[in-house]
């Protein structure tokens, strides 16, 4: 099929903070230098910000470098009076930590809605002349004839039916060609996965590890005790996950009587019966949290994974014709529970390199080497290098993690073992399917909601008549080995109830997929013990409709 081709100097794939900051910075630098650069940015969500979900406490460092007068320009910050409280939770009680490690201090940071923040960055980018195309998914990286140089990205077809045949409104995707393509797909991108296979950008690195967050924005009554709380930024660990599963809870103050509440669960958990969504509900029912949120109403809910591997899982940052930024390039600092400022900075450093390389006419991996060099000289390196073993220590069972963390604290991150190894999350599950002992947490439809109500409140919408975007190469495996060994963990790890096991005739289990529920969090592809789920981009414009997360 003949596809239309559109040429740009730089194409950014993905409209998150890394790429938006990159596109803005590229335009700023070009303007300063009096150079013309044609820049395009595509995003699979229907609007910029609609798939963006994070805690989020933003370190303002990168933003201040990018847009120094951000406050005057109406940057949507939710809360700037940050007072930290960190609590260890037991099933019924809590203990406040008297001492916070410096990395946990959030003074000078701001609570934001990443969704609103990205929408604002998107508008700023558009003002600078970036061609922004929300609703267009990148489905394939394009290569030159030799197959080693990235030449752009192909957008997905629209108007293809369930049966794979074009409908009357079929609109073929186009080929966006670029001198340099910048991939900022977030954690577990579907394009970078294929690029990794082809060009080996992950080889020799430790496997990436992930965490899944379920988060809500809750509106609280005017007389909620939270408004008198001495803390505006609360972090918890311990219950409900215990000390053997990494992760923890957060509760942040926002504007308009709203709070952000969430639980992050490390995907290296071992119990196949564990259900992150259920743990989130249990967290909400803990007396510390339940008392603070009493009388509230969930306005929006969503889920997203984050790439938590850090320094040692960072891929090769440039190949011929392309660079990788943000969570795609493992820029998150798990020690500080922050990745937005590092993502933005990585995009900005990539932009500086790309403009340089275009000027010099060398867009090969060697020509783009300046990106890694800039990163090495930047504060990203000092942050991430200090935290290089932090996530691995958190993965240690019980109290051992604190020995490692303590040793790292006094040795600039080196600790007892450097580098500490990471291992693939999908391989962590242990066989067995003992039913959970605790009763199912209660739901009331307003403050405590079930998964499907959550999907509804995420604003998720997909064109119903399209091919299933979740590819399960071996469906027989689902009802045999996976069911027998783990009792189908997909039905639990997915926060959107995409996967269900039905009883078919003869009492045999049968997998039923609800791809329209998909929150695009990608937990399934990461946690599936048999690597039997491949996440591909559904028709552009589909997915969550986050506005305040």
């Amino acid at each position, binding site marked *: 099929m003949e596809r*239309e081709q*559109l040429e740009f100097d730089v194409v950014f794939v993905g409209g998150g903070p890394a790429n938006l900051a990159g596109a803005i910075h590229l335009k700023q630098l070009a303007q300063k230098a009096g150079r013309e650069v044609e820049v395009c940015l595509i995003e699979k969500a*229907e*609007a910029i910000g*609609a798939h963006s979900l994070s805690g989020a406490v933003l370190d303002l460092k990168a933003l201040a470098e990018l847009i120094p007068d951000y406050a005057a320009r109406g940057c949507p910050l939710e809360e700037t009076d940050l007072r930290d409280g960190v609590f260890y939770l037991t099933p019924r009680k809590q203990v406040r930590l008297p001492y916070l490690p410096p990395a946990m201090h959030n003074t000078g940071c701001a609570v934001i809605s990443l969704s609103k923040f990205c929408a604002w960055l998107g508008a700023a980018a558009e003002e600078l002349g970036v*061609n922004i*195309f929300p*609703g*267009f998914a990148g489905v394939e990286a394009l290569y030159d004839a030799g197959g080693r140089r990235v030449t752009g990205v192909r*957008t997905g077809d*629209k*108007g293809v039916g369930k049966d794979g045949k074009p*409908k*009357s*409104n079929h*609109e073929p995707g*186009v080929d*966006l060609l670029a001198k340099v393509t910048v991939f900022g797909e977030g954690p577990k991108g579907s394009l970078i996965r294929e690029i990794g296979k082809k060009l080996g950008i992950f080889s020799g690195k430790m496997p990436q590890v992930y965490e899944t967050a379920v988060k809500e924005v809750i509106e609280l009554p005017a007389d909620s005790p939270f408004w008198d709380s001495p803390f505006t930024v609360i972090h918890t660990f311990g219950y409900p996950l215990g000390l053997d599963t990494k992760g923890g809870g957060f509760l942040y103050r926002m504007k308009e009587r709203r709070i952000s509440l969430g639980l992050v669960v490390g995907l290296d958990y071992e119990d196949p019966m564990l259900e992150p969504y259920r743990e989130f509900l249990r967290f909400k029912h803990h007396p510390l949290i339940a008392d603070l949120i009493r009388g509230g109403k969930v*306005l*929006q809910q969503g889920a997203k994974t984050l790439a938590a591997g850090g320094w040692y899982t960072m891929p090769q940052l440039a190949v011929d014709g392309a660079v990788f930024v943000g969570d795609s390039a493992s820029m998150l600092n798990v020690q500080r529970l922050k990745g937005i400022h590092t993502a933005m900075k990585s995009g900005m450093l990539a932009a500086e390199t790309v403009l340089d390389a275009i000027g010099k006419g060398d867009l090969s991996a060697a020509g783009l080497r300046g990106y890694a060099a800039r990163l090495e000289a930047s504060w990203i390196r000092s942050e991430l290098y200090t935290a290089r073993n932090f996530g691995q220590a958190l993965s240690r069972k019980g109290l051992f993690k604190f020995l490692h963390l303590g040793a790292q604290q006094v040795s600039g991150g080196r600790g007892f073992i450097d580098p500490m190894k990471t291992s693939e999350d999908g391989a962590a599950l242990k066989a067995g399917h003992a039913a959970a002992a605790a009763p199912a947490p209660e*739901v009331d*439809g307003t403050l405590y909601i079930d998964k499907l109500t959550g999907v509804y*409140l995420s*604003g*998720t*919408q997909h064109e119903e008549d399209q091919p299933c975007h979740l590819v399960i190469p071996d469906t027989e495996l689902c009802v045999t080995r996976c069911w027998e060994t783990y009792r189908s963990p997909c039905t639990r790890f997915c926060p959107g109830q995409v996967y269900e096991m039905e009883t078919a005739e003869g009492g045999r289990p049968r997998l039923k997929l609800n791809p329209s529920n998909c929150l695009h969090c990608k937990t399934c592809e990461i946690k599936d013990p048999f690597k039997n789920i491949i996440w591909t981009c559904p028709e552009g414009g589909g997915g969550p*409709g986050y*506005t*305040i997360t």
Partner: protein
Amino acid sequence: MNIVVLVKQVPDTESLVQIAADGKSIKKDDIKWVMNPYDELAVEEALRIKEAKGGSVTVVSVGPQKAQETLRTALAMGADKGVHVNDPAAEGGDPLATAKILAAAVKGLPYDLIICGQRAVDEDNYQVGAAVAEFLGIPHISIVAKAEVLDGRIRCHRSIEGGTVVVEAPLPALFTTQRGLNEPRYASLPGIMKAKKKPIEVKTIADLGLDPATVGAAGRKVVIQALRLPPERKAVRMIPGDTPAAAAEELVRILHTEAKLI
């Protein structure tokens, strides 16, 4: 064939709608705004007629600055130009007041056919199309599931209880759309690029020669007294049971002992 399409920007039906403090309007922040789905059908139909018969498609909208996004979407789908009535005096009108503005805007354009959505999914009034036709003194056919342009006439198929009625009117005429009329096309990426360069004419109430006191909130004859959200439905209760018989037994027990219905 010069075709005019009337479009409106409305909250996406998946948006979480909240009532504002005045009790008479909705909170407009944090809402996703989209082209009214019935207007998408209208744009698509206009483009198909233009592709078959030649001519031009002009899209017209009344609304704040943001409404221009909807005009751009229509231009990206393939419409040729836009007219945007953007004036604070135009805001807050009832269907009749809005129709008066739209009719005045259309009057200045060459047109053989006007197409618009049967209703906007925000307030569901079903009135604007008919009122515009009345102001312009042209025939109006509502809720059309199939349209054929003949020589100087339009033939429309309307679904009615148990069948279809086929009606014809001389052009110029106005018809409103029903689901099933077509499958609206996607705005393509090259289409969006091109749309950036297509003209949108911005007009004020004064430009249209209207008295501001007769349109917008000032010109309202129907006044909204209160808005209420529909009552929240109670959660569904699933009846447990390993077999259909056991579930039925449990259902009977609940109906008898808890609901006391049997």
